[in-house]
């Protein structure tokens, strides 16, 4: 019988870790440093260097892009979800969005050292398998938008006139928020 820390107890109830042994969840909580945020705290800033991801234990983080009048909310993350995950497998990347705590939030810091320290931990395997699916979905989502813009463009490829081509850029900008 394993005595779980409060973080491990919370994580063990999440869908992501439903098949993970308690000792692996405990190990993850031991090697990954916890961090707490108050409502309104800025967790990541768009454009800043990215070197770690956050596993949300409890609470809620909100991601947005742009600033001022152009600021646009692009998603939120709750318990069992990972934020800033591309930093784990991309070199010298930068944050693509600003992330702010929407409520009191507790996270575990997942970085290079955590991945190297315990490469066969069942909880990390669960996180990695989750990431495979989520990154693939993001790739497919972007790809679908591009295909949609392409099919709707109605312009000839290399012969496109400036009006049609601008329309393509504007459509892409509309979907993804360009020109910030």
């Amino acid at each position, binding site marked *: 019988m394993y005595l779980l820390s409060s973080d491990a107890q919370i994580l063990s109830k999440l869908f992501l870790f439903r098949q993970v042994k308690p000792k692996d969840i405990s190990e993850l909580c031991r090697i990954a440093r916890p961090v707490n945020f108050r409502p309104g705290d800025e967790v990541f800033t768009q454009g800043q260097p990215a070197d770690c991801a956050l596993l949300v234990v409890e609470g809620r983080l909100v991601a947005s892009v742009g600033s001022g009048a152009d600021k646009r909310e692009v998603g939120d993350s709750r318990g069992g979800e990972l934020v800033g995950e*591309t930093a784990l*497998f991309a070199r010298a990347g930068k944050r693509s969005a600003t992330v702010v705590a929407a409520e009191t939030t507790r996270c575990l810091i997942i970085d290079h050292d955590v991945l190297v320290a315990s490469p066969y931990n069942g909880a990390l395997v669960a996180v990695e398998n989750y990431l495979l699916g989520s990154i693939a979905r993001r*790739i497919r989502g972007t*790809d679908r938008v591009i295909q949609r*813009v*392409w099919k709707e463009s109605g312009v000839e490829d290399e012969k*496109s006139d400036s009006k049609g081509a601008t329309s393509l850029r504007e459509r892409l900008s509309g979907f993804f928020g360009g*020109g910030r």
Partner: protein
Amino acid sequence: MIPAQQVSDWAARLLLTNPFPGKSQRELVQIIQACQLEVLSDGETILTEGEAGGDLYFLMEGEVTVLKRDTDGQDRELVVMSAPTMFGHMSLVDGSSRSASCHARGRVTVAKMTRALYQDLLAKPHPIGTTFRRLMLATLTRQLVDGNARLFTLIGGEIPTTQKQGKSPTKRPAKTSKPRSKASSSPPKSTAPNKASRTNTDDVSRSDLLEMAGILNGWKVDTSGLEDIEFVETEADRRRSGKSSS
């Protein structure tokens, strides 16, 4: 049969372009050894766009031409991939059909990973499984980041990353002024024009979109700069490798 040393060198080069925490050349070699080697002649079809995906391929030797059908039903050449790289993985990750067709360009050797082996490797927390899972994550992350960077360039937004890919994390390339292409190290016969100097006011064409779809789907892996780099395993790498194989 590919000589063991050649497989080892191949693995080192693949890890150079797709680095990840705890990367292990030894485990990657074991993964290749568990795959089925196939030698293909010039023009032979490896994958067909639209078909269900069943296998993943590591390109060990030679070149592969990637074709994608456009909305007019014409096959468009996206890129010519050179070894070392992997392809066909997206269909295994999300069960989608093949997003492009692949043909051997000259004599080609591939290591084919079956769906059963793929699922076995992903599920288990053993050294080989961890290496494969993280190789997949590094590859997918790169596709996403490269695709997004290209997208932001096209629409005139801020590029969210300044990644210099294909560069060794352990040794700086000798030449830093060499211009980088967005395709393979050998000149691809891409139909897309060079967009290196694109600005916010430039046009976006359907070729741009086609090129980006190629990047997102993992067909346009940037291996430029590889020829300048000698793979160097650091002490930390060796410790991790030793640790991961125990």
